[in-house]
């Protein structure tokens, strides 16, 4: 079959259309893969990933994120490329994608390629195109940088297998947290079809690890693992539902990352909400914070949220929220507490907890030392003691601490949120109930 979508279009126009069409895909990370250059072509990968630029919305640009084509046979309600939309359509050729990737990469604009696609003719046909493109990039151009390829749900498992051996990371988007949600919003997609390639990739990675232990030079299969994304705020799912799904994906599907994407009603679909205050950015931010707590801080979803309390307090971060509801565990003595407990103190991160454990071998730490170590004292001071003393006398009382923390946030002196100054998201904070606030905010001492 031949591609007949606007063949006369210039690469510039295609890039504009297919770059714009890919922008709602959140994943742009280039991490998880570490590979040195072999001296035959260009490229290597860095385990931590590199962000090469930042777009006007402040999100990082790490990969050349494009759709192969925005032609699509599906009609998902949230998607700008659904077949019932009258938008300009375009398709790259494999050579054009290769050329763009190589030339951008040489100039250090990008860390690699993120290739997704609308469904052209059929899932198999589309997946085949993606495979061909990536294969060309790896073999003809000897590109050794990062490649992220979408697994098209419903495509032949052999094609997905083939793509996995060429790519660093693969992903299948879950789209909605619940199966019912997906059915309502994307009539052509089925939960089962999404989980199937996800499981296949997971098994592929596990088998490949065993292979590599046996044969050192065996080819790598999705070295950087797989990721997925969920749309937030299009349907009335609770944070508890969303986080439980995420936890399941981490535990049962060994995913590297779950991304959350604040819903933007691009189609102005009448059955989907129009969100007056813009996309629910603050909620998205809280979910990411909780996601970090799951992955790096040893928290479980059931500790953070319950059926009875299914949503995060949007005014303070999930970790502080957990801490004020578990005051019986505080204050924590910095010089004695174990690493796991240090991690649970608001204002102490993975790095500073590690530094505390290392530095206290040389002597007792003081608040002054903690400051140098990088602990955020204005948040931590309610929860810690150094050598048995608090920084200054404060009440260990839920309401008092919550109010002090939210007051700091309100004044712009507390938590650094990524979107306060430009207005977006700030209004959501000022809705917070402020009764009896003023007389308590002065901090004793």
């Amino acid at each position, binding site marked *: 079959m031949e591609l007949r979508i606007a063949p006369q279009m210039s690469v510039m126009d295609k890039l504009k259309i297919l770059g714009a069409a890919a922008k709602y895909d959140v994943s742009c990370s280039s991490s998880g893969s570490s590979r040195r250059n072999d001296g035959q072509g260009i490229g290597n990968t860095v385990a931590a990933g590199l*962000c090469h*630029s930042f777009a006007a919305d402040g999100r*990082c*640009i790490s990969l050349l994120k494009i759709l192969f084509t925005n032609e699509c046979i599906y009609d998902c309600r949230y998607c700008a490329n659904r077949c019932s939309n009258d938008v300009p359509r375009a398709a790259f050729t494999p050579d054009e994608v290769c050329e763009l990737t190589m030339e951008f990469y040489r*100039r250090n*604009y990008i860390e690699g390629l993120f290739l997704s696609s609308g469904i052209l003719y059929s899932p198999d046909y589309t997946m085949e195109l993606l495979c061909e493109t990536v294969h060309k990039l790896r073999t003809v151009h000897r590109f050794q940088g990062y490649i992220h390829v979408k697994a098209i749900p419903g495509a032949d498992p052999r094609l997905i297998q083939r793509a996995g051996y060429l790519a660093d990371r693969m992903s299948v988007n879950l789209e909605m947290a619940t199966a019912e949600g997906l059915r309502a919003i994307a009539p052509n997609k089925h939960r089962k079809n999404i989980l199937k390639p996800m499981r296949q990739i997971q098994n592929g990675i596990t088998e490949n690890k065993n292979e590599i232990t046996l044969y050192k030079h065996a080819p790598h299969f999705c070295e950087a693992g797989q990721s997925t994304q969920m749309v937030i705020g299009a349907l009335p799912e609770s944070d508890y539902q969303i986080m439980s799904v995420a936890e399941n994906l981490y535990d049962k599907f060994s995913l590297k990352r779950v991304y959350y994407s604040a819903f933007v009603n691009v189609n102005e679909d009448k059955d989907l909400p129009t969100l007056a205050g813009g996309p629910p950015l603050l909620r998205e931010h809280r979910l990411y914070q909780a996601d970090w707590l799951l992955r790096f801080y040893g928290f479980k979803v059931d500790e953070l949220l319950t059926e009875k309390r299914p949503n995060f307090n949007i005014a303070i971060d999930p970790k502080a929220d957990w801490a004020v509801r578990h005051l019986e565990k505080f204050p924590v003595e910095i010089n004695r507490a174990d690493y796991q407990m240090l991690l649970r103190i608001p204002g102490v991160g993975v790095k500073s907890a590690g530094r505390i454990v290392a530095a206290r071998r040389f002597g007792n730490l003081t608040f002054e030392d903690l400051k140098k170590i990088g602990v955020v004292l204005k948040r931590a001071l309610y929860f810690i003691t150094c050598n048995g003393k608090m920084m200054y006398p404060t009440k260990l009382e839920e309401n008092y601490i919550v109010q002090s923390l939210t007051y700091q946030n309100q004044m712009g002196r507390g938590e650094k949120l990524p*979107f306060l100054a*430009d207005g*977006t998201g700030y209004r959501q904070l000022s809705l917070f109930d402020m009764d009896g606030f003023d007389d308590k905010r002065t901090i004793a001492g």
Partner: protein
Amino acid sequence: MEEKYLICEDSLEGIFTGIYEAYALREGHTHVHMQIGEEENLRLFATYRYIPPDPVKTDKVAQTLKRRLGEHTYHALCRAAASCYRDKGEAVYRTVVDALTAGSGRRVMENLKNPHVARCFELARFTANEAHYETEFIRFQELAAGDSGENRILFSKIGPKNNVVPFVMPHFADRLSIENFMVYDENRKLFGVHPAREAWYLVSAGEDFNLQEFPLSEKEEKYQELFRAFHRTIGIKSRENKKLQRQMCAYRYQDYMTEFAQEGKNEA
């Protein structure tokens, strides 16, 4: 006792030679201090000694530090020595004393209770962070010298606060091993040069050097345009947040970056 100030050159050689001389004095370390370059206000009751950099002594110090403290700590000290702050000499010297003489050894960088170690740690982190940002934000341009084949040259100009070129080069030497490329630090007039398939090296251009604009290759403009277009289209309008963009990628980097160059002109 009288305070002694060793005045060292602003370079890794300068600082390491200074450390060698400080130990060679055999007077303990309480009253010996290190200073980078001349200071305007001289202290009373202090003697000043100028220490010229010496490659042999530098090498001895480097070998000792590597052997006794390990590569990891040694590199942290090198990063601190590449800092743009003048108190780096004293910080690095005192950290070495803490490691070798006070006995914290390989773990010295963890002893953040010691204010000099904390400062050295801070300086090293600043250099490491900036080097990391530069590996991300460096933009190469293809020069006209070789539009085709083996002769093509990639060139990049940066203006970092710290001396990061030596820390940035290994990354690109691996990644772009088959390319000829140069990274030019405009603040230090320092070139990092990598000929294709060979080892990279540094060239100091000297104080009076003025960089001439090189003519660009034929296709260069096209790819710059394409990337600018991509950069514009990938942002989501309803999430626009210039402050966050600036926070993640400071203006001082944006000044050297292809995708921001044009934007500035359009606004003006």
